[in-house]
């Protein structure tokens, strides 16, 4: 539901309406038609949307319009009478600091901030300060040269300066802005076709892959653990949040899993296949899945071995190779995946051990603190499928 906000935009008081989720860049572009603010990545990386709020450059894509209520916004359209910005524009033109122009509004905002804040900046410092603004055309040289030229010739004083921090205490009690009715959870897409093992990419065929290898002790006899591995249903039951939806012949399977990691939630639905070597107590699992809401794809291949230990336990060793694509890949740094994997593994291994020893398994946690990616890994690791339940 849209509610009213009032901002000072380029020196003009503007009253408008915005949904809570509308970020400042969309508000400027869609409501006020100030399309000089460009949107590139919308995740704070490219810097194209950089504008000034209360005199400080900020990412308009990571700043909610409602969070700017009562504040002062300056966009690239608002510098017509600004001598420093005029100098920068001329310098960008003279030094070929732009080509297609897409990054230019953000570049000018950052350049303005560099000139007024760091009058002594050398080339290296300028380049470092510009690192948050991406340009695909110029190779940056012209942009850096333009800023250096303005600094060298003694720029006019900046008319726009940061205002003192003001506490955003509303003048009157603010109204809560309620969220619109949310639509029901997005259903999984059409179920992927179960494919035979050989139809999935092997580890070395996964592009952009990362690897996770672990060797873990399970406090249960090897035969009992292997018996569980042979039955995907029991393994799936041991993994918190995992669920097997379908089990085909020849080790093909379908499943899904929902995981939570900090504020992130994902629900991967996928298919896979396994190939077991009972004599060697080893197996391979390959699969692929998708979190439909975030449009994140995952493909993984896993090889594991079980070996009896002298103490009567079992040593599980595995290597998982996975490739992520889509939004979640932004946050799926291998170190994070590994840490999240270890947490899920800890729970799953404990559960497997209890079940292999014939003890009653503890109920699975209601919410799994893990990573969506992980899901895939673990799914492919032990189970053959998954399914999860959100609280």
């Amino acid at each position, binding site marked *: 539901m849209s509610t009213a906000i009032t901002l000072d935009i380029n020196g003009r008081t503007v009253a408008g309406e915005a949904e809570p989720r509308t970020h400042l860049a969309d508000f400027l572009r869609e409501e006020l038609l100030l399309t000089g603010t460009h949107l590139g990545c919308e*995740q704070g990386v490219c810097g194209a949307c950089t504008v000034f709020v209360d005199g400080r450059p900020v990412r308009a894509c990571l700043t909610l319009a409602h969070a700017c209520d009562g504040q002062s916004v300056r966009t690239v359209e608002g510098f017509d009478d600004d001598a420093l910005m005029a100098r920068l524009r001329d310098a960008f033109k003279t030094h070929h600091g732009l080509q297609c122009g897409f990054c230019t509004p953000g570049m000018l905002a950052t350049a303005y901030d560099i000139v007024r804040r760091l009058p002594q900046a050398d080339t290296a410092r300028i380049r470092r300060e510009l690192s948050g603004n991406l340009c695909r055309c110029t190779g940056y040289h012209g942009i850096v040269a333009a800023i250096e030229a303005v600094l060298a010739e003694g720029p006019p004083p900046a008319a726009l300066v940061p205002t003192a921090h003001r506490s955003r205490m509303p003048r009157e009690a603010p109204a809560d802005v309620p969220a619109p009715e949310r639509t029901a959870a997005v259903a999984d897409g059409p179920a992927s076709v179960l494919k035979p093992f050989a139809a999935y990419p092997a580890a070395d065929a996964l592009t952009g892959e990362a690897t996770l290898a672990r060797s873990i002790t399970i406090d249960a006899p090897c035969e009992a653990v292997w018996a569980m591995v042979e039955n995907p249903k029991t393994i799936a039951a041991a993994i918190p949040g995992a669920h097997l939806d379908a089990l085909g012949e020849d080790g093909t399977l379908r499943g899904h899993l929902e995981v939570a990691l900090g504020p992130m939630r994902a629900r991967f639905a996928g298919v896979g296949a396994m190939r077991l070597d009972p004599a060697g107590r080893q197996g391979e699992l390959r699969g692929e899945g998708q979190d439909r809401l975030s449009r994140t794809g995952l493909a993984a291949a896993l090889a594991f071995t079980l070996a009896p230990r002298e103490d009567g336990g079992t040593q599980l060793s595995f290597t998982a190779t996975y490739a992520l694509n889509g939004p979640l890949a932004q946050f799926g740094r291998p170190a994070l995946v590994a840490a999240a994997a270890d947490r899920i593994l800890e729970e799953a291994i404990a559960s497997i051990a209890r079940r292999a020893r014939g003890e009653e398994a503890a109920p699975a946690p209601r919410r799994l603190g893990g990573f969506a990616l992980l899901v895939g890994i673990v799914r492919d690791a032990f189970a053959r499928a998954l399914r999860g339940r959100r609280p």
Partner: protein
Amino acid sequence: MKPAPFAYRPATSLADAQRALAADADAKLSAGNQSLGPMLNLRLARPGALIDIAGLAELRAVTDSGGAVRIGAGFTHAEIEDGEAPDPTLGWLRAAAGAIAHRAVRNRGTLGGSLAHADPAADWVIVMAGLGANLVLAGTNGERVVPADAFVTGPFETVLRADEMIVAVEIAKPSPGARWGYWKYTRQVGEFAKASATVLDDPAAGRQRCALGALGGAPVVLADGAGLIEGRVDPDGAVRAALAGRVADPQLHVVALRRALAAAKQAEAAQ
């Protein structure tokens, strides 16, 4: 690209924010929105409500108790970088703040928000652990103080309870002669670190700490900080022992620690 719909609740006071947080299990606190924002925009996070605590006066309080300073969690990285927020360490916080992401992000992102978000590679997560700082958490049952090195429990996960928030960071003033080194490895300026390390050398206060960050989960304080700082312990062996089974190839962390040790050695002693 737009986030999934959520309700927006600008908090008018700390108590107001705590009430709102306790009343809605699906609500999320937001200060600068610089880390949560990308997750919202990509719809990886879909909270039902955002409680905006940016600018709350209580989160900008500064208390000097003599030996330590409590800094409100609501200061932005840029304010710390510019010296507008106090830096009891005589410049170490300012230098660390200036290397966080990019200036436009630093202008909105906050000290407490970054800690609570708990990206294991975030600067404040390792810096506060390395300094031996304490985090002041406030919930409906009052305040508690948690050591920064025990705050993060996993990637994006912390000891914060559902109704709690970080209100301040408590940092001990270093002794005269104390030194500090912080080094992080990033492939590009401003991106999250792939490895990081800190060295605090304050023998007069009995605090000689070496810590490793960007490990995927909690930072690690190495066992024999004094030995490492005084050259009696080999950094390579210490890092490999501490990260065994956690990091496949700790070479970057070895380098980070060596460089942080060198930086501390070369640093001017605090006066």
